[in-house]
């Protein structure tokens, strides 16, 4: 049988920040994810929003959609909050904190999509919101079953007694992250309807990708 060289998928821990038994940590793997989230958050902070151009059919004219004022501030704030929540999710050393950060990413994504006042886009945001609300059920349920079965939520303690987490809990958390991470499909809808999105919509794709990468690491470690 093939055996992994180390017990944890991400390699040796580089940095550890203990708060009681909740120990946040960086491995080379999660450190890379954190840097990725940080870079895209900085892009959201410093870049100017895209001006989308719509062609008026039958003529040579084009409309330029401008994002200014309140709208811009709200979308930028939501994108930054989404980036910070993603950073929290990738560094968290506690299963329940991870699920909370994932659902916070979901709320921020709703905010990013819903800031466009367009009926179709709002529709997409509403439908995603329903999915994300339903997805918190398997997320919290999986964390609760883990706690009931092993008596701890700390990833460190779980990995020390691995394989400790029941398979059903793993499956539930995976389903929950899939539900929250389905956002790019709905964000694509916002882009399809020519709503001015860039660069803030990028944060949606980045955060759901990073959540998937992190949940795979957790599932393989515990």
């Amino acid at each position, binding site marked *: 049988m093939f055996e992994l060289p180390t017990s944890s998928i991400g390699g040796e821990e580089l940095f550890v920040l203990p708060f009681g038994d909740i120990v946040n940590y960086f491995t080379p793997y999660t450190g890379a994810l954190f840097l990725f989230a940080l870079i895209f958050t900085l892009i959201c902070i410093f870049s100017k929003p895209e001006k989308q151009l719509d062609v008026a059919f039958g003529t040579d004219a084009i409309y330029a959609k401008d994002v200014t004022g309140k709208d811009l501030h709200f979308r930028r704030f939501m994108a930054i909050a989404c980036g910070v929540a993603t950073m929290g999710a990738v560094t968290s050393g506690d299963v*329940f904190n991870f699920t*909370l950060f994932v*659902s*916070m990413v*979901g*709320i921020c994504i*709703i*905010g990013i999509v*819903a800031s466009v*006042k367009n*009926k179709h886009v*709002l*529709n997409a*945001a*509403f439908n995603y*919101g*329903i999915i*994300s*609300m*339903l997805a*918190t*059920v398997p*997320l*919290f*349920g999986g*964390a*609760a*079953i883990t*706690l*009931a079965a092993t008596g701890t*939520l700390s990833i460190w303690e779980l990995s020390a007694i691995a394989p400790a987490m029941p398979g059903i809990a793993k499956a539930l958390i995976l389903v929950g992250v899939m539900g929250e991470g389905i956002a790019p499909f709905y964000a694509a809808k916002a882009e399809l309807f020519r709503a001015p999105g860039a660069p803030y919509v990028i944060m949606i794709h980045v955060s759901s990708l990073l959540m998937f990468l992190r949940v795979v690491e957790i599932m393989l470690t515990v």
Partner: protein
Amino acid sequence: MMDEYAIGLIVALIAIIITFVAAFREKNDIHRLIIADLAEVSALAVIALIATDLAEALIIPGLVVGISELMALSEIYLVREHLTHPVKNPFRIEVLDTAPAIIAVILVVYGIVLCGFTGGAVAGTGMVFYFMGKRPAERFALVETVSGYAWALWIVAFFIFMVVPEYWFFAVMLAGGAILAKVTAKMSLIGTMRGEKDV
């Protein structure tokens, strides 16, 4: 013979399955929203089944996440359906112009006597009544400012607990007074929800 946790878990899972089936069969958007909230409540039930102090601590963030998602989605629904403005004028009753001040003063004074969270709730009820009777937007900025300072005082009290524990009595009084003002301000917010602009 199964233990209580397994039985409870099975019951909760059945409830979750029923809500999920309902959520996928339902077509009306506002009904789907309510069903999604029901599903969140059943997730809280799964957490509560653990029945330890830790579970109690986990329920609160779960509840906050659920409520914030529910509020965001209902706001999206209102904007999408153009329901942001009230459809009819708020009703007026003559006695509501004169009575609120007296009753509000009685309740607020009694709330201050009680102090702490309970006192905040009683005083808040008085404020709710006052704001419901009077015009909603009245002096609301002042209440917000008081609420902000109260929160800061509450945090200061916590720092006193941690840094200089020998002054605990002062910190208790500070936190009690601050939480009184905070809860009062939060509850008086309800009294202003009469559909005025920017409220």
